[in-house]
């Protein structure tokens, strides 16, 4: 019997260890004026938080950060919002999931400076009562980059056909390994398939460029990816990969990492990427193409006469589960961030994140040639949206990506059949549940 005691003691001590660990790891009592900001840790978010921090110090508020990895960001924050957790006072918000959280977020129409932002990108963030649920942090836009040392001003591609021609010419001359490189695997669809789709007068659902869910529903969420306007995009990329060979065959597997690695190693002449990569591409430590980067509006396909680009934002949002005092404080700080023109200029200089406040645009246009160029190739063009704003959007994106990649990795003559099947899959994804 005494031996039993040994066992009990062992297990008691295990329990004690757990209890000790539990009490030791508990957070210290939070001070009243601490706001916790939850985001994914991207440099632009860090820079925007720096502006907030500047104002927080003036209000003697302490800001803390919780980094939530991008891969689990949406499910984890969704779970936090639905359980009414007050863990995050301010969260990162993005147009891709703009609609999902509307009922859990504080409205932001009364935040200072909210009238001085671009209107179109806000489309993703209205709640059912047409109140805003976001405070813009920075714009996220895609841009066509090319190598100025390889492609002269006169040769800059205006159409998809120009792109193939100049790419092949450079490859033949041995100046560069690939004409074009861009991401295509799931969640990178914008940088190959989609920018060409929109610039060829096509879209995923009918009618094209429409984002009003009522109109899309009235059209039965009919996918047009099996229609000629889209089929020719897939044909174009099939040829680019397998026949014209201006892009690596494995492009179907590339994300931003692979595409940027190849472009920055100086192995490709053209790419499409987020505008914020301007800084990395021109950083001598990171890029062999530094100093030779040009930016132009998108080349266009047969279906359009002028370029069209997407214009969307990253933003901040405030959960309803946060105490009213913290909500007010968060709104105040975010308003100060939004009206802090110097702070936004600094964010642009440090990270290349285009400022949310349009007044800053005028100032930067006057003083900064890079911003002037960005404004010309992005902000002054026609605009589309880079996502659809409803709950089934991730499902639609995945179904689209699977169909397009299946078509591009298969035989060319099978493309119509694969896209027909894909159009059905995309429609089913849109009306699922």
């Amino acid at each position: 019997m005494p031996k039993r005691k040994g066992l009990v003691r062992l297990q008691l001590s295990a329990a004690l260890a757990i209890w000790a660990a539990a009490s030791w790891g508990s957070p210290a009592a939070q001070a009243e004026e601490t706001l916790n900001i939850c985001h994914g840790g991207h440099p632009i978010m860090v820079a925007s938080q720096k502006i907030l921090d500047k104002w927080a110090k003036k209000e003697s508020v302490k800001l803390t950060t919780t980094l939530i990895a991008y891969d689990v960001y949406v499910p984890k924050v969704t779970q936090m919002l639905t359980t009414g957790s007050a863990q995050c006072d301010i969260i990162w918000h993005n147009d891709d999931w703009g609609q999902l959280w509307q009922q859990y977020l504080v409205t932001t129409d009364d935040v200072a400076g909210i009238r001085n932002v671009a209107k179109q990108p806000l489309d993703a963030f209205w709640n059912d009562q047409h109140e805003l649920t976001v405070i813009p942090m920075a714009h996220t836009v895609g841009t066509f980059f090319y190598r100025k040392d390889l492609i002269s001003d006169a040769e800059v591609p205006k159409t998809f056909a120009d792109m193939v021609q100049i790419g092949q010419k450079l490859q033949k001359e041995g100046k560069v390994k690939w004409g074009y490189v861009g991401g295509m695997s799931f969640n990178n669809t914008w940088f190959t398939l989609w920018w060409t789709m929109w610039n060829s007068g096509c879209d995923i659902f009918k009618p094209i460029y429409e984002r009003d869910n009522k109109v899309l529903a009235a059209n039965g969420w009919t996918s047009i990816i099996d229609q000629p306007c889209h089929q020719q995009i897939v044909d174009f990329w099939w040829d680019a990969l397998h026949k014209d060979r201006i892009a690596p065959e494995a492009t179907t597997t590339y994300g931003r990492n692979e595409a940027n690695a190849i472009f920055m190693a100086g192995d490709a002449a053209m790419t499409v990427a987020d505008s914020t990569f301007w800084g990395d591409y021109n950083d001598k430590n990171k890029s062999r193409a530094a100093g030779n980067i040009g930016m132009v509006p998108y080349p266009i396909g047969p279906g359009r006469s002028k370029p069209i680009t997407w214009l969307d934002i990253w933003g901040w949002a405030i959960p309803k589960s946060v105490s009213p005092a913290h909500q007010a404080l968060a709104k105040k700080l975010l308003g100060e961030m939004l009206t802090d023109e110097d702070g936004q200029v600094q964010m642009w200089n440090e990270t290349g994140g285009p400022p949310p406040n349009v007044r800053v645009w005028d100032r930067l246009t006057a003083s900064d040639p890079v911003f002037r160029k960005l404004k010309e190739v992005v902000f002054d063009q026609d605009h589309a949206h880079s996502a659809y704003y409803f709950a089934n959007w991730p499902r639609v994106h995945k179904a689209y990506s699977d169909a397009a990649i299946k078509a591009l990795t298969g035989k060319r003559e099978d493309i119509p059949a694969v896209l027909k099947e894909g159009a059905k899959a995309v429609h089913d994804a849109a009306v699922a549940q």
Partner: protein
Amino acid sequence: MMALCAKKSDRRYRWTDALAPGGRRALFLLATIAIVLLFLGPIVILVVTSLRPGWAVFYIYRGTDFTLQNYRDVLATEAVMHAFVNSFLVATLATIVSIGVTVSSGYMLSRFRGPIPRAWFGTIYVFRTVPYISWVLPLYLVCYHLGIYDTYAGILLPHIAVHICFFSWIMKGFFDGIDPSMEYAALIDGCTRWGAFLRVALPSAIPAIAALGILSWLYTWNEFLFALILTGHNTALITVTMAQFVTELGTAWNLMSAMAVMAMGPAIIITLFAQKYVVRGLRI
């Protein structure tokens, strides 16, 4: 049948005989080289990656520039040392506590018959099969409602729950392989069941406990999913720090590889420390 076997072993004997001793040594050497290439090679690639400047982290074989900048950048990351301490504590505590609560349960599974061991084995088995990704979000809810989200307990206890199955089963396997007659002898000598376990079964299981300890320590040290969902900024772990280098706009692979190489340091130390118990075992 016997003749056939004898013939076979005869042939084998001659074959090794022809090789021995120089040939055998050559074979051993070849195996050693192959193992080093296969297991060390990829790690060398990772280490080289972490030493390359930004433009060469992917084309690691181009150019000859090397830099320590990636390590400096990682060390400048907020709370990175804190994360190392946290991960070390969590991995060590989870391993020790798991061993504490499950060595006996493995023994029970191996030596006792009846409804309780059977039910216990069945329970562990049934709930092991459900993938983590389907219950990590409810696990967040459990931790949240118990008030232990973002505390050490909130990450320790789920890890212990995962290890319980692993330990109990594999310990059962080991105890199954150990002849119980020695314990019966001890029982006859007047030991209690618990005494027989402590004096006879446990010592012979030391290699197993050490091996499982290493593997579960490494598992917790390197675990991403639970860490990402169940920790906030109080209990940041190294894998959470690594995950922040993956953003919507791509991966900072130079920083991630540097962080991964740094994270291997404590892992190697722990392994070196514990693996001598795996080898030593009964043959002290």
